[in-house]
């Protein structure tokens, strides 16, 4: 612990995860909002890793299985997420192709990698660089929801394209798997405990202060 800084947990004080009230952890529940008090989220790393393993297991079928099936004039084509992106790219709609690539392929992967790395840092397997860790966690929390865009596209296309024999679109299993990936990685980010990163840092000797001291303004 750096001199001059006291951790709430060292005083047996818990910061309520819902309302931010600092209270004795022995109270059990927050005196202000009634949420269960913990010094740290219980079994945070295990929960995060388990949810991510499930997300990774679904990630592969979500890209291999069709997210929607198009029946156009009796001709049936199965569309995958990557296939949809490629057809935008080939037809010259580069911005949309990049949006789909980022939201559906890149963000879930980056999220899984970043959270694994944060878990490794929290258990001391990699040496943490504290200025970056905060930004990484913030990004994983912020970006996750945008991956849902492809699920919404499936919903919109299915709803509009009910034109009988001319063109009919039905949702595929891949969409369900992909929605699972998004929801699981969101829960994984929520169950991660960023304070563990700083607990780990305090155990290391002679770590310089990550940022200059800012006065209360």
């Amino acid at each position, binding site marked *: 612990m750096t001199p001059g800084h006291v951790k709430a947990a060292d005083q047996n004080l818990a910061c309520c995860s819902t309302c931010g009230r600092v209270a004795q952890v022995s109270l059990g529940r927050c005196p202000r909002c009634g949420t269960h008090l913990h010094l740290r989220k219980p079994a945070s790393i295990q929960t995060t890793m388990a949810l991510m393993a499930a997300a990774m297991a679904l990630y592969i079928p979500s890209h291999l299985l069709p997210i929607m099936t198009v029946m156009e004039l009796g001709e049936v084509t199965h569309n995958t997420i990557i296939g949809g992106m490629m057809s*935008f790219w080939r037809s010259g709609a580069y911005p949309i192709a990049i949006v789909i690539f980022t939201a559906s392929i890149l963000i879930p992967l980056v999220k899984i990698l970043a959270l694994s790395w944060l878990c490794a840092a929290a258990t001391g397997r990699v040496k943490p660089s504290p200025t970056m860790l905060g930004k990484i966690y913030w990004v994983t929390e912020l970006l996750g929801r945008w991956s849902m865009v492809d699920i919404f596209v499936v919903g919109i296309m299915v709803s*509009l394209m009910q034109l009988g024999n001319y063109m009919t679109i039905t949702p595929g299993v891949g969409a369900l798997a992909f929605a699972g990936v998004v929801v699981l990685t969101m829960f994984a980010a929520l169950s991660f405990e960023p304070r563990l990163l700083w607990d780990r840092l305090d155990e290391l000797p002679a770590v310089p202060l990550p940022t200059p001291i800012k006065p209360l303004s």
Partner: protein
Amino acid sequence: MSSWPQPTNDRRYSACHFCDTLHESLPVAEGKAAHCIRCGAVLYQNRRASLVRVTAFSLAALLLMVLVHVFPFLTMDAATLRRNLTLLGAATALMSENAQLLGVAIVLFTVLVPVLIISGMIYVCGPLMIGRSAPGARTVAKWMYRLEPWNMVEVFLLGVLVSLMKLAKVAEVHFGIGFWAFAGVMLCMATAVASIDRGELWDRLEVAKP
């Protein structure tokens, strides 16, 4: 300008949600923020005219939400057929095509969660303007903050734009009033949520008369 009313029963502390460093809570002036002395993260901030802004933008968002369900998002003309897209229409289409879970997800993330957050903010922050707390306001506020990550209004709007690009090849598509109303819901909700700090809301709830 002064700080919001703070409970005075004992010495107040805040802990940084990121590095858990303990601070004594000091009042901050309007428009200012308190930062963690160790990692620099924002501990709490005093937003200008917070309660008025939350209530006003939430009411606007709720009114726009009504328009979203009355008017179509997109209108499509393809081969003498005209089809309209609505939010609930997209969800029911998925449900009738054997993808019930996806339909439920759409209703949850784009209708139910936003409406619950918006009405929660009106219910909690409206009475707080005259220093009162509505019955069960603390429970409502608790669930409001828990539901916040699951609000996907802006993601659905991006989905509408992507679909528009996909459909442009096969049909003539027009934006409807529903689309613009939903864009309004997104802006009003984002402004309302950003108008009040979590610490301020809970401090005000703690000192409010029932």
